[in-house]
């Protein structure tokens, strides 16, 4: 089995978020980590590798320093890393990003593509499903459990109060939730191997069947009006009332805020 895992280097939001004057993230100024949902997706791939045997390729688009996140993935147990980096790809929104990643994946053999549900720097949850559209393969999003049976995957898809069990023939794409698993640590020996590993670097010219008009800032229909760091909510109000008083109190508050 061949698995491609799309991973993203994201700002470590614990260290605070910094913006460029144009509202885009100042990635160079921030500490970075592997996006948590993507890390869970990688862990899921590594567990499938251990259980069924697989070759795991990690793929990322980003600045040259995004190579670090690929090496981290290799130190955890991934077999190969591919970095797609090119000035013309900069400023990509989800549409241009998914076009770019699909263009890279068209060069690869794969049975399964795993992406994180969403990245903590954008929270769109669009890139994974968009890639599946571009590649014309099925997608199962919000995976909380993944099994392989013959040439199919059986996935538990999470909802707020339930889950659906879905079966899809491979090749297909799955988007993973951070709750899917507890990702393993790198090993010291894995780190030493990862630092020696050859990372494949692709540019615009290496992307297959993608129009220039779908790439980079120019190919991005999204325009950012305003971006800000998360604003901390104020302390909540705590009241102790019996059931009927509570109903009146809540209704009163909802009316006060013109919600009802």
């Amino acid at each position, binding site marked *: 089995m061949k698995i491609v895992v799309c991973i993203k280097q994201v700002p470590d939001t614990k260290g605070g978020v910094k913006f460029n004057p144009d509202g885009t993230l100042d990635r160079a100024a921030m500490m970075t980590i592997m996006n948590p949902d993507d890390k869970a997706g990688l862990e899921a791939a590594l567990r499938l590798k251990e259980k069924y045997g697989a070759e795991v390729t990690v793929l990322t688009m980003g600045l040259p320093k995004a190579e670090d996140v690929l*090496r*981290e993935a290799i*130190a955890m147990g991934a077999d190969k890393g591919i970095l797609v980096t090119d000035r013309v790809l900069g400023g990509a929104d989800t549409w241009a990003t998914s076009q770019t990643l699909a263009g890279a994946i068209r060069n690869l053999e794969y049975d399964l593509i795993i992406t994180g549900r969403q990245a903590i720097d954008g929270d769109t949850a669009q890139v994974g499903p968009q890639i599946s559209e571009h590649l014309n393969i099925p997608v199962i999003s919000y995976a909380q459990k993944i099994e392989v049976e013959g040439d199919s995957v059986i996935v538990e898809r999470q909802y707020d109060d339930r889950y659906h069990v879905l079966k899809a023939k491979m090749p297909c794409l799955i988007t993973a939730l951070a709750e899917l698993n507890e990702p*393993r*640590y*790198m*090993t*010291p*020996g*894995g*780190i*030493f191997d*990862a*630092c020696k590993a050859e990372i494949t670097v692709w540019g615009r010219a290496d992307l297959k069947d993608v129009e220039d008009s779908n790439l980079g800032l120019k190919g991005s229909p999204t325009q950012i009006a305003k971006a800000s760091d998360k604003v901390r909510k104020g302390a909540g109000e705590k009241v102790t009332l019996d059931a009927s008083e509570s109903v009146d109190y809540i209704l009163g508050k909802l009316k006060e805020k013109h919600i009802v």
Partner: protein
Amino acid sequence: MDFTLRKEHEMARSLFKEFAEKEVKPLAQEVDETEIFPRGTVDKMAKNGFLGIPVPKEYGGQGCDPLTYVMCVEELSKVCGTTGVIVSAHTSLCCDPIQTYGTEEQKQKYLVPLAKGEKLGAFGLTEPGAGTDAQGQQTKAVLDGDEYVLNGSKIFITNGKEADVYIIFAITSVTTDAKGRSKKNISAFIVEKGTPGFTFGTKEKKMGIRGSSTYELIFTDCRIPKENLLGKEGKGFGIAMHTLDGGRIGIAAQALGIAEGALESTIAYVQERKQFGRPISAFQNTQFQLADMATKVEAAKMLVYKAAMAKANQKVYSLEAAMAKLYAAEVAMEVTTKAVQLHGGYGYTREYDVERMMRDAKITEIYEGTSEVQRMVISANIIK
């Protein structure tokens, strides 16, 4: 000369740091209070390869260098001195001599499971009458057919009751030199837990590193297969001294970690603690104390990393190891003492980590050669 760390060392440090913060730090206070060996943490470290960092891959290890191992002990010790010494004693004092002096069979049988973390290692040299004076040994091993018969006891053994494989030193012969002076010839043996005649004595009640299992080992007609002799018969003293050179780098790393942990805690505390309407970090006394502490920690780090590099590149590194151990241990004691002082009354309570760190720091000036022994080694190396 370039002091920049290589990429793999930066990544390894971030790994050890993350592991220490997530897995070790939350338990540090409890491990100290209860004096219970952190077996769960050791199992996790085994799973992640932390128990065979400098051991070659062909012997089940991670194939990394001594600097990576030093960083592991350092980062663990930043949050828990107990966890740091468990890894140090296992790696430096048990894996290392088997890797250096063991036969291929011994390496396959003992080093592989040790490096994989399936087994834990310990080292027994110290006796009630033989601490700094290793020649004062009383434990004897007598060859009887295909077995050595071991009698005697060892004290203050780190990983004492929790280990599976022990490197034990014993007198195998006494010779007389030309001047008529007798000399005890010591040999090293690999002893497995569970060997008949090998039992445990009392557990030490210690000031610091309280979760570390420190026991007396007792050997009563304990029969060791002849093939478990490590190195040549009578060459054990050299093996012990060479092993301790490596061990001192591990303890130096532990001391460095404890000092760094105390410094980090104090830097955070002085910015929160207010007196006379200002955070105490606004007072020049605090600033100057911290400046001295940080400078000494940095100097200790340079010595410790240099010793680790010397172990990687040189055959003999006694001087570098002794300097690193001496300085890092004394810095650990000084920095943790100042850290408690800067915390004031709170620093004297067990609610704050610096109290434990100060108690943990003291042992680094004592075990694997006291600071006085390190001065003996250093002076013997420079006055020739």
